[in-house]
């Protein structure tokens, strides 16, 4: 039996339980699991302090208000809370930067911070262009047999594989 204090659970069990989260999403919100549009809600809400005119952009306005948008912001904040709880229960608490980055890139802490910022920018730019990420297109789109999601997931793996093989040293 998996215990709350275990560092790792079977990826099949954990993955399948993640898939079951589609039940409350569809039942209570009529939508599928997703993560990346919450970044638009967060970004546009912050930007609205400086630029109230952002509401004039239909895409921004569609992400600023309403239960579904703030449900997803709450969802990703909840992800941090859940991971915090799990890592404290098991003792797998992380500090600083994962050692894999030194091995794969040779970068120090500062270099890794700059790289992470650029990576986050590209990740969300791409996710918003594609209208979904690993959750929205991956978990949810593929579970709905959406052809667009199959294409997006294939392209995502292609981009990731190219980057990780061309830019990084082997991680083992």
């Amino acid at each position, binding site marked *: 039996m998996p215990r709350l204090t*275990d*560092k*790792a*659970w079977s*990826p099949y069990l954990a*993955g399948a339980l*993640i*898939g079951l989260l*589609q039940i409350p*999403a569809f039942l209570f*919100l009529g939508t599928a699991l997703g*993560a990346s549009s919450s970044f*638009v809600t967060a*970004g546009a809400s*912050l*930007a609205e302090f400086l630029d109230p005119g952002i509401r004039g*952009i239909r*895409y921004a306005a569609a992400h600023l208000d309403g*239960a579904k948008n703030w*449900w997803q912001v*709450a*969802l*990703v904040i*909840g*992800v*941090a809370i*859940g*991971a915090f*709880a799990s*890592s404290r229960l098991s003792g797998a608490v992380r*500090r600083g930067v*994962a*050692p894999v980055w030194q*091995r794969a890139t040779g970068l120090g802490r500062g270099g*890794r911070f*700059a790289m*992470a*910022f*650029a990576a*986050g920018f*590209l*990740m969300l730019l*791409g996710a918003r262009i*594609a*209208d979904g*990420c*690993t959750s929205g*297109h991956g*978990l949810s789109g593929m*579970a*709905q*047999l*959406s*052809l667009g*999601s199959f294409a997006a997931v294939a392209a995502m793996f*292609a*981009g990731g594989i190219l980057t990780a*093989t061309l830019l990084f040293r082997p*991680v*083992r």
Partner: protein
Amino acid sequence: MSVFAAILLGLAMGAAFGFLLEKARVFEPAVILGQFQFRSFLMLRVFLAGVAAGLVVLAVMTGFGWAKLSPKALLPMADIAGGLVLGVGIALAGACPGTVLAQIGAGYKDAWFTLAGGILGALAFTYAEPTLRPVLDMAGQGKLTLDVVTGTPFWMLALGFAAVLVAALVGLERWRPWREEIGAEADGLLPPHPAAPPAAAVPAE
């Protein structure tokens, strides 16, 4: 549903999601990089298990009329260009838009920079969206799904596809058990492959 209730539900569902992402170890950068370098398959194991469970859930829920699907439209330009950029970002971040929050929860400091870059990236897209929209919608096909295209009932295809995924995962587990990919620190970082001893080091006997 009121915004307040939606936020409470989101926090509860997110906490479960984050807990499971952490237990699955799929939020670890070494797991993401390892997958993209075909050295570890943990990400695929979690991902395909999640898709398989989702397929079964949606087959049942739509079959009984408890849920209506909400697939995204097929936009070839947007899906492929966006997917590629997203994939580059995931490899460089060692995270997905969802798992970056799990990295923050577990304690990785660089994830805060990924998050900040992500919010800026989403904002940049928001400002560019009215200009980009005509290009992204080019050759758009509407909400095409495999069941509609093939004229097969959704539940039938979904259960069949789930069975294929489960069979693939059984095969993957037989080929290499998942525990071999967790690593000593449970961070998915595996020891380097032992180098073949140089010929000169082998005793002449």
